[in-house]
């Protein structure tokens, strides 16, 4: 069967060869852990510990009462050194809990759920364990497990696309821990009472497809779907369109079409939380790029500094010109190495001059390539022009808030216009002026 996919999108070189056959290794155990209190989408957490407190592995160090929030736990045992602003990957300093490790890794008592937990129990455990979407957006998972009344989830889609170039963390966990993904998947299906389960994997990961088919053979309601290698295949709405052949309407959530999408790594986190009671304190990241001495797939503690991870991989070569946290399409460029890995971090990339595009911006020639590739069916070149000339009021009529900032338009643009940057600026300015008119 021909692999399924969504209309439009782009085909960047995948650059996965450096790490896609490497086993996941345990990362460094750093002396100092920095946990920004803003780890997930939604509300910022309040610290649950004080400076000087002793903490154990898995102990809650921050939580929020807001609906969209996830608690944060310590990945090490040791002492809270400070709660102060620390460098963050956004380039600013954000309030963080700094923990000095004592190297003993003493755990708090963790208890999993019973062998056959109820949906409510699973949801509560997912929240208590601080699980967020590990694909990159870091949206608190329990919120997605609790759809609005009247909307039922029929299909659970496990996202193993990993369409961003360089990234191989999800690929490796599918090859190495397929049983645990399946277990988490069954728990998630139970939590939302879904009837069907799908696992979407791009065809550039044949061994992952094989491994997942092998473990799901006995389950007639679970299907492994081979998807075309295309960016942004791993985006929620695009994945739903590819597998279920339905479009999620603008401003609507996937549950409006009865679908729920979770990343493979999130699925493992759910399994660990429900079976062993372990909170989300570590994740698998890819450390790659030509600038890294030995590229690796690492299981690192959340809060490990980028510098510690890079040193663990043998440091960087001299020609590194760009450090990126996350994938090259949607990640953030780092301005230092002090920022920590957070729950939503999928990779640390050190790119050299020959791996990054030379920026040489020209005026828009109205070729329409950005329109051809936009997976959300938008007109990116118009956003660029509108923001450039300050016509902010028309942005919304052109559905700027539907943009998922995947970067396909900027990738394809022959004039190399920073279209995503224009869109981000436009969205921000609109949000600002809205806030102003609300307060006035």
């Amino acid at each position: 069967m021909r692999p399924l996919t969504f209309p439009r999108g782009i085909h960047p070189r995948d650059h996965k060869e450096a790490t896609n056959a490497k086993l996941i290794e345990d990362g460094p155990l750093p002396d100092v852990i920095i946990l920004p209190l803003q780890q997930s989408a939604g509300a910022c957490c309040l610290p649950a510990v004080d400076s000087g407190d002793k903490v154990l592995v898995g102990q809650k160090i921050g939580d929020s009462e807001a609906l969209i929030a996830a608690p944060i736990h310590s990945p090490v045992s040791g002492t809270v050194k400070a709660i102060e602003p620390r460098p963050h990957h956004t380039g600013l300093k954000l309030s963080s809990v700094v923990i000095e490790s004592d190297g003993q890794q003493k755990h708090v008592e963790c208890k999993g759920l019973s062998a056959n937990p109820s949906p409510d129990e699973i949801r509560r455990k997912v929240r208590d364990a601080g699980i967020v979407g590990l694909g990159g957006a870091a949206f608190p998972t329990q919120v997605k497990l609790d759809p609005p009344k009247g909307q039922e989830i029929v299909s659970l889609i496990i996202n193993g696309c990993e369409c961003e170039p360089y990234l191989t963390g999800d690929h490796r966990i599918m090859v190495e821990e397929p049983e645990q993904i399946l277990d988490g998947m069954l728990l998630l299906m139970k939590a939302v009472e879904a009837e069907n389960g799908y696992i979407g994997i791009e065809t550039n990961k044949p061994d992952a497809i094989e491994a997942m088919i092998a473990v799901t053979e006995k389950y007639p309601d679970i299907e492994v779907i081979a998807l075309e290698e295309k960016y942004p295949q791993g985006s929620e709405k695009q994945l739903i369109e590819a597998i279920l052949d339905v479009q999620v309407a603008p401003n609507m959530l996937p549950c409006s079409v009865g679908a729920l999408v979770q990343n493979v790594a999130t699925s493992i986190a759910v399994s660990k939380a429900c079976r062993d009671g372990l909170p989300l304190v570590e994740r698998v990241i890819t450390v790659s790029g030509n600038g890294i001495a030995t590229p690796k797939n690492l299981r690192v503690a959340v809060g490990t500094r980028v510098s510690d991870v890079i040193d663990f991989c043998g440091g960087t070569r001299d020609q590194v010109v760009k450090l990126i946290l996350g994938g090259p399409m949607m990640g953030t460029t780092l301005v230092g190495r002090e920022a920590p890995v957070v729950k939503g971090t999928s990779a640390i990339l050190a790119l050299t001059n020959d791996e990054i595009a030379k920026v040489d911006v020209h005026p828009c020639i109205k070729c329409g390539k950005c329109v051809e590739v936009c997976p959300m069916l938008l007109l990116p070149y118009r956003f660029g022009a509108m923001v450039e000339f300050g016509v902010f009021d028309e942005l919304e009529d052109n559905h700027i808030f539907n943009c998922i900032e995947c970067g396909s338009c900027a990738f394809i643009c022959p004039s190399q216009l920073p279209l995503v940057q224009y869109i981000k600026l436009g969205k921000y300015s609109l949000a600002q002026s809205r806030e102003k008119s609300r307060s006035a």
Partner: protein
Amino acid sequence: MSDLIAPIVSMGAIGAVLALILVIADRKLRVKEDQRVEKILEILPGSNCGACGAPGCRQFAEQLVSGEQGPAGCMAGGPEVAKKIGSILGVEVKVGLPQKARVLCLGGNLESQPRAQYEGIRDCQAVTLQSGGDKSCVYGCLGYGNCARACPFDAIEMTDNGLPLVDDFLCTGCEICVAACPRQLMAMKTEETKILVGCSSLEKGKAVKQVCARGCIACKLCVKVCPQDAIVMDGNLPVIDDKKCDDCGICVEKCPTDSLVENLINQLRRTSEKKKAV
């Protein structure tokens, strides 16, 4: 001859009916415009800057007449315009001192090195959204000139050092640049403020020193040397009490990083002549 009578009579009748309609429309639908609106409009600067909150000068004039705005509402016009408006409206106007835009950062490209090479939109807000900006000081002026572009009076110029320079003879104190700066580095000051604190970093001294040569390092020397006890520290920045300050200039002289400067109201002029406004 008889051929002409019919058209003359019919045209005359149509004309009379239409004239009657116009007369009725004039009586019934007339909009009485307050004469004062036109008069005020003549006084206003006419730049339609929008700093008063109205979309343009005409709307502002209408709001003045209807009482929705006060005579001092025109930021760009300043006290003189306010007084004239007051005399038209027959109200007494208490005017403050003229205010001028001031930049609360002295760390230009020479003083504060960039921490990254930035390629993208030349806009302060866009740079801020991108990894927090390319300037090593996350509180300092980014130098991409949003304030200069926003100024409706062309009073702000970006210097070669990447800092805004305000021309006091063009600045009307309309406060548009204050809203345009994503880092809140523009502020309005009157001549009551004698000394300006030219740093907005909330960091401790050591961290400031690492990123900027003219940043305040919170050494508190100014607090100690001030003979009037007019300076106190608020966090890591000094705050000067304008009422106590007698402009002796000792703090400016003693500041080890030159981050205190004299506030020379009405004395700043732009350096280049190229864009001199009318």
